[in-house]
């Protein structure tokens, strides 16, 4: 009813009906939160934020109705390129990679990359050079992350990548990391809710927020640029940024340069020419290979250790479920159903962040434990059914020979069950190898995450995706081959 009414009113107003009916689809990530894009706390269905208001200005000047498309922050570039929405607006940084692969608007906001440290460290950690051997957190796939990678080489610090901008600061307060490098907008926002850290006044680099469009939408981008310049000239942007308390003296200078027609570098104060966006695709692949291989080693070590632990716990659970009394069996059944019935991602979050107040596990240990506890539930089901599948005659024969129940399990039932469990276990190991990519949410930099960073910096998923797939196969195929060989040995005919 409302729809009909609004269309009639459009027609009555004499607006260009065709374009008014085609919504102006824009992509953003409400998880990024205020002041960019967030669900209005008092009306959760309504979005608020400066990116929302700027997009409204764009839509209005195009004579179209804005329509929001919810896209994860890390997928906005790819989503725009494949046409899910016309423009991406969500505090997106201007980078050489985006300029080379997408149609990028003029920058509408200038930010500073600032260092945050715990209050007690404010006097000794003033710049990246002071952070040798220390863990410095940031958002993955950002300019700040590139700066930290350079800092690993130049200053010996350790870059830790997060997938959201809240946990870097909460982990800073908890002592898991020693500093956070992010833009001043994010730092100041977190400073209002998280106590105990200081934002250093000296900025490490200067960057800009832009809107991104698909390359073929360059004409639309040009029209939007005109709108943005108009909004700079007539104070519309100033009014919006003042409302969100992020207006400062950097913006008038940026707008003056843009309105004078001067080119603005995407990043100031940090040399991005070493970035892969300027290299040929093959050269980029060659340069990223060592870090992909390192990430593969993290993946394989994490998977092997988790699987080992999952097997040990799984065997214990299965034994308890087959031999235990009723309370033990019920307890273990509860554990299995809880771990199988809830998302592993949730379990990882609870172990790493949820328990942080009580147990402050290092990221790798939390990842290892989370994967192991989850997979133990699945392994235990395999072993339980395998134990129950060992023929009763085998067990009776062992008992008549005078073996104790413990010996029957260790010498007869266990080994025979293991042979039955091998094929499903191999399956699970390969699944675990791939599920290990989930632990990047706990800041563990494994193969999939490294590939994503590579793809973001390169602006393409084709080569990184192929390399990543190749590395996963290189890890999983030998496991499958080994399992086949064992099975063949056990089945060897005379």
């Amino acid at each position: 009813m409302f729809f009909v009414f609004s269309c009639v009113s459009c027609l009555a107003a004499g607006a260009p009906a065709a374009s008014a009916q085609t919504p102006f689809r824009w992509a953003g990530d409400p998880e990024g939160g205020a002041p960019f894009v967030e669900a209005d706390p008092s009306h959760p269905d309504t979005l608020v934020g400066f990116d929302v208001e700027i997009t409204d200005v764009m839509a209005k000047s195009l004579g179209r109705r804005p329509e929001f498309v919810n896209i994860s922050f890390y997928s906005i570039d790819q989503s725009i390129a494949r046409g899910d929405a016309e423009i991406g607006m969500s505090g997106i940084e201007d980078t050489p990679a985006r300029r080379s692969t997408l149609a990028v608007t003029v920058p509408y906001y200038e930010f500073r990359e600032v260092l945050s440290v715990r209050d007690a460290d404010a006097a000794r950690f003033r710049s990246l050079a002071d952070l040798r051997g220390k863990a410095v957190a940031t958002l993955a796939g950002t300019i700040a992350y590139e700066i930290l990678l350079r800092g690993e080489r130049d200053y010996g610090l350790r870059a830790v990548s997060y997938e959201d901008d809240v946990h870097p600061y909460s982990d800073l307060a908890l002592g898991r990391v020693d500093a956070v490098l992010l833009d001043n907008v994010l730092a100041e926002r977190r400073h209002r809710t998280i106590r105990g850290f200081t934002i250093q006044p000296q900025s490490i680099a200067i960057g800009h927020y832009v809107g991104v469009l698909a390359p073929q939408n360059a004409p639309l981008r040009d029209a939007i640029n005109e709108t943005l310049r108009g909004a700079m000239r007539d104070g519309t942007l100033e009014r919006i940024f003042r409302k969100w308390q992020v207006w400062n003296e950097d913006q008038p200078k940026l707008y003056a340069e843009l309105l004078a027609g001067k080119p603005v570098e995407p990043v100031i104060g940090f040399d991005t020419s070493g970035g892969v966006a300027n290299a040929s695709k093959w050269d980029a692949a060659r340069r990223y290979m060592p870090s992909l291989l390192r990430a593969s080693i993290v993946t394989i070590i994490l998977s092997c250790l988790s699987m080992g632990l999952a097997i040990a716990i799984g065997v214990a659970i299965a034994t308890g479920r087959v031999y235990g009394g009723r309370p033990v069996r019920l307890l273990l059944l509860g554990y299995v159903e809880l771990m199988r019935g809830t998302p592993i991602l949730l379990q990882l979050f609870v172990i790493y962040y949820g328990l942080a107040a009580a147990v402050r596990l290092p990221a790798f240990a939390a990842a290892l434990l989370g994967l192991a506890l989850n997979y133990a539930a699945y392994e235990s089901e395999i072993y339980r059914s395998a134990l129950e599948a060992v023929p009763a005659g085998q067990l009776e024969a062992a008992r008549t020979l005078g073996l104790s129940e413990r010996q029957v399990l260790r010498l007869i039932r266990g080994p025979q069950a293991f042979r039955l469990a091998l094929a499903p276990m191999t399956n699970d190991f390969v699944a675990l190898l791939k599920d290990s990519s989930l632990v990047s949410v706990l800041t563990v930099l494994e193969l999939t995450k490294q590939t994503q960073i590579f793809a973001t910096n390169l602006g393409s998923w084709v080569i990184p995706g192929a390399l990543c797939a190749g590395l996963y196969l290189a890890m999983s195929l030998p496991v499958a081959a080994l399992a086949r060989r064992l099975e063949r040995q056990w089945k060897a005919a005379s």
Partner: protein
Amino acid sequence: MESRVLAVADLHLRRGARVILSGVSLDVARGEFVAVMGPSGSGKTTVLRAIAGLERADRGRIDVNGRVGMVFQFHHLFEHLTAIENICLAPMYAHGVSRDRAAAHARELLAAFGVDHRAHALPRQLSGGEAQRVAIARALAVDPPVLLMDEPTASLDPARRSELGELLQGLTRRNTALLVATHDEDFARGYATRVLRMEDGQVR
């Protein structure tokens, strides 16, 4: 009476409402070969399983000088172990015999039963007769006073059947007692020293 190695007195066993054994009594003396005959369902196998400790009787007594040995109808050799490993298992783990001594004894048994050339074969690689001999060797490896056998001739051809009969008579000459459940009238008459007949859960 000193030569008695197994005494079963007034054994009762029911499963749900069904009576399986109703007052079975029997004795076996050293070196004796006792055959238990009777139609299917008469309780032969259950008596053996109760003596071996695999079934719990509701009432009655079972007295044995030590632990009985059991050879199942389908042998139940441990599928993941070779013939000689099957034989060594109980001496090593239930009696604490060293690996070398257990292996030496196992080889003697295999040689005595003519299957020493199959020592390293897995159960699924053995013929039915070979598997039976390995199963007998496994049961005898811990020197039980009585060897229980369930339907030993069920899957043997006539030539193999007489070989088995002679093998078992050889055991009785070395003072092992045998209690054998069988359907095979000729086998029982030909080799047993005594034949018991069971019907409806009782020895007639």
